[in-house]
């Protein structure tokens, strides 16, 4: 048993729902109790979809358990077929139905429906949402993709785009950005899946020359199978950030046998110029803590350091499957990766790292609010405000612009930060002030932690500390206390405070 308050990922059948809801002409019959229908609201409320997910739940009750829950499943599957007339169906069990072992796959086959029925085995007590999405997509691709037809001569190179789902973080916008990029390169898009694809489209996957994998957490296993079955290579680079986007273009150009140089040369990217412009000097060395799914966390770590000049003080993910890559990336920055799905452990890691900016998930946004640290969301799980009405991709050239804005916006602007430093005692301009463009709500002063028992702060030193802007005060306090403890200083005076400052500023 694992004690959990908030979780980063839902159960695996939520992953299956994300695939089913992304697609057209597919229906999911889920053997599950009534409460599990809450999952619909993820799509209708959080993502604000205008249609119910194509999911029928059997909603068995305690009184059915002694009787025939299997019959209930068959009725639900038959009626769902008659009502929705899908091209294909997926069937499976949620955590409770897994325990009663009704075998939805066998039951559905016994119905003899005139459409393909794909049975899902998603072990709820071992696996989670992303795994469930990947497994579902893999099973669908495997069951539905037909052997490729012989390729026509002289055809433009073509690819499939794999990975975007419903409830994905900016998947819809990423897809538009990348589709546009590939089209400008002269590459035809054969099929995009799961988002917008029908089961019939999946049958055509083998016709493409290669696969573009946008979200390996979801499309990884399907792409690996397509590589084996149809000899389709797949892209490895995730085009988040300018550098990665350029590498991605080079990678697809090589796969397609095209010359990427013209497109790379033609691209003028605002984010790069903004980052070089003198106004951005103050971003140099900002301490940033990055946490999310592996793909987004790794990409954010790279962009934060290489394209904004931040210092990476924390990197982590809730995805244990990709722990190794994260550990390696963290090591390159001289830090240790935080691999955990316990948000309290992540919060502790953030506190220890004392970042000036957090790039995380919805959970880290709450942590950041509590700690009074600026934050931007870079990865699922996300909430309704992370589905903006405007076009807001994370990938490609426009994605790099969006990320530049999103990450810089929560920070204090350069000159403002200096003025705060200079006029600490101005009554409107005091150290607790929030960035002026964010209104009053952003600042929450956290209570001063108690110093180690052996230490006391002289009153005047404490007052001096109070003049330091709140967003660096905690760090100054801890550094000074560490400095004093290491040197056996019992009372921290103003001198000790400034000695510590001199010691720690490099």
């Amino acid at each position: 048993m694992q004690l959990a308050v908030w979780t980063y990922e839902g159960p695996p059948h939520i992953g299956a729902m994300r695939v089913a809801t992304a697609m057209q002409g597919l229906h999911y019959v889920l053997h599950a109790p009534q409460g599990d229908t809450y999952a619909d609201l993820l799509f209708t409320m959080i993502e604000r979809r205008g249609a119910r997910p194509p999911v029928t739940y059997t909603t068995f009750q305690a009184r059915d358990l002694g009787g025939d829950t299997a019959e209930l499943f068959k009725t639900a599957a038959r009626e769902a077929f008659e009502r929705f007339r899908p091209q294909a169906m997926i069937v499976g069990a949620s955590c409770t139905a897994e325990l009663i072992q009704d075998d939805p796959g066998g039951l559905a086959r016994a119905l003899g429906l005139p459409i393909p029925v794909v049975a899902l085995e998603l072990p709820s007590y071992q696996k989670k949402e992303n795994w469930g999405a990947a497994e579902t997509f893999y099973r669908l691709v495997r069951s539905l993709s037909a052997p490729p037809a012989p390729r026509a001569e002289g055809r433009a190179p073509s690819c499939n785009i794999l990975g975007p789902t419903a409830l994905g973080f900016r998947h819809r916008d990423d897809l538009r950005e990348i589709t546009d990029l590939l089209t400008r390169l002269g590459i035809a898009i054969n099929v995009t899946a799961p988002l917008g694809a029908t089961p019939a489209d999946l049958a055509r996957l083998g016709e493409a020359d290669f696969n573009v994998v946008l979200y390996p957490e979801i499309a990884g296993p399907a792409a690996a199978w397509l590589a084996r079955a149809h000899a389709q290579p797949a892209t490895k680079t995730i085009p988040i950030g300018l550098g990665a986007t350029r590498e991605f273009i080079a990678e697809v150009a090589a796969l397609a046998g095209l010359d990427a140089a013209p497109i790379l040369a033609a691209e003028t990217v605002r984010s790069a110029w903004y980052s070089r412009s003198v106004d951005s000097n103050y971003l140099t060395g900002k301490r940033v803590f990055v946490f999310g799914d592996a793909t987004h966390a790794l990409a954010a770590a790279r962009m934060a350091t290489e394209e904004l000049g931040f210092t990476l003080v924390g990197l982590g993910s809730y995805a244990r499957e990709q722990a190794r890559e994260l550990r390696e990336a963290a090591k390159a920055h001289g830090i240790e990766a935080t691999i955990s799905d316990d948000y309290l452990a992540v919060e502790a890691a953030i506190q220890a790292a004392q970042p000036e900016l957090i790039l995380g998930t919805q959970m880290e946004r709450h942590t950041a609010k509590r700690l009074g640290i600026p934050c931007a969301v870079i990865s699922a799980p996300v909430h309704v405000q992370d589905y903006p009405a405007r076009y807001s991709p994370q990938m490609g050239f426009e994605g790099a612009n969006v990320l530049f804005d999103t990450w810089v916006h929560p920070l204090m602007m350069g000159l403002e930060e200096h003025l705060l430093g200079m006029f600490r005692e101005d009554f409107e301009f005091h150290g607790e002030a929030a960035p002026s463009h964010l209104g009053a709500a952003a600042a929450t002063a956290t209570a001063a932690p108690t110093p180690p028992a052996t230490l006391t702060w002289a009153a005047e030193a404490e007052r001096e500390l109070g003049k330091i802007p709140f967003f660096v005060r905690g760090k100054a306090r801890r550094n000074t206390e560490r400095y004093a403890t290491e040197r056996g200083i019992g009372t921290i005076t103003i001198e000790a405070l400034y000695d510590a400052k001199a010691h720690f500023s490099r």
Partner: protein
Amino acid sequence: MSAAALARPPAPGCTEAPVLRERGQREVFCGLTGIIWLHRKIQDAFFLVVGSRTCAHLMQSAAGVVIFAEPRFATAIMEERDLAGMTDANEELDRVVAQLLARRPDIRLLFLVGSCPSEVIKLDLSRAAQRLNATHAPGVRVLNYSGSGIETTFTQGEDACLAALVPEMRADPAPGLLVVGALAEVVEDQMRRQFEALGIGPVAFLPPRRAADLPGVGPGTRFLLAQPFLAETARLLEDRGARRLAAPFPLGAEGTTAWLRAAAEAWGIPAARFREVTAAGEQRARTAIARHHALLAGRRISFFPDSQLEIPLARFLSRELDMQPVEIGTPYLHRPHLAEELALLPADAMLSEGGDVDRQLDRCRAARPDLVVCGLGLANPLEAEGFTTKWSIELVFTPIQGYDQAGDLAALFARPLDRRTRLMV
């Protein structure tokens, strides 16, 4: 004016009206969801769901409407090895509880809340509670109830929780009034003042704000249900000798007056005195409701089954705002507790119990009501089809009972229609 309004004859009523009972997909929350308001209500209680990742995800998604930084609930997520054998599961549960209590020393009352998986594997949480009580007494009291989706629907979770509290109530033979059902504190305070003004007392509330303030119960206890979904709690209170005062529920001016009157009659308060005390409040309520009359009167309204509040709400909207209920869906119809409500419903309203969401959607599309009250999974899809909707979960998260909330309650239904008329897009 209030007297005239009061004198309005009861509608023909549909106490005996037929009910459409369907079996199909039920689009409702399970009883775990009640924790989202109960953990705010009982301030020193903690709710530990013994369940799966699905249960944890439900709590977080439903609570997403009202995110709390440090909620007083959590889930003990069962994993593969917990399913291997009962000893393991029990040992694991003990370990998780110890871990939780170490982290949250402020917990005085711990509810172990059963889920579908814990029930299907027959993990006995009442035994577990006994065992844990022995370990953690006297600092912490451990109780258990089921919030599982195979046993409970949405608000029935509150019923199960309160039912678990009844055996904990000390025996108290003295006369007194008990108000049963979680209410917002502002509502409780208003009611307390009204009962005091009427000379009814002592008055206690279940659930209490703090576990330590759990009231007593006995043959002298008369209780008023503040919520329509408390069948089991009422039964257990009656087993302890308490007597239920039959009344409509305190929604709207009329409902609140009738509800208060049930207590006033039990306490032998003269009718004139009752009018004297309640007239001003009732008038305030009527004035506040009247502001929304023009927008709502004559509009047709349908309810999808959700909180069991549907029948009292339909009664309020039809009698005080002249709306026309088309279909009133409810997850369960507990006739004895709703007898006074059913008598006030228009005879032509169609009642449905349980339900098949796809078939009710068909009926809804055919009837095209002006306003649809439904859960979060259906609201946006119906809006996208051109319906105006009111999400029903707001009705359990908002103070709506009593005179001074009657206008707010009407406003909840008026707002979506108001919005429709404003938007030009």
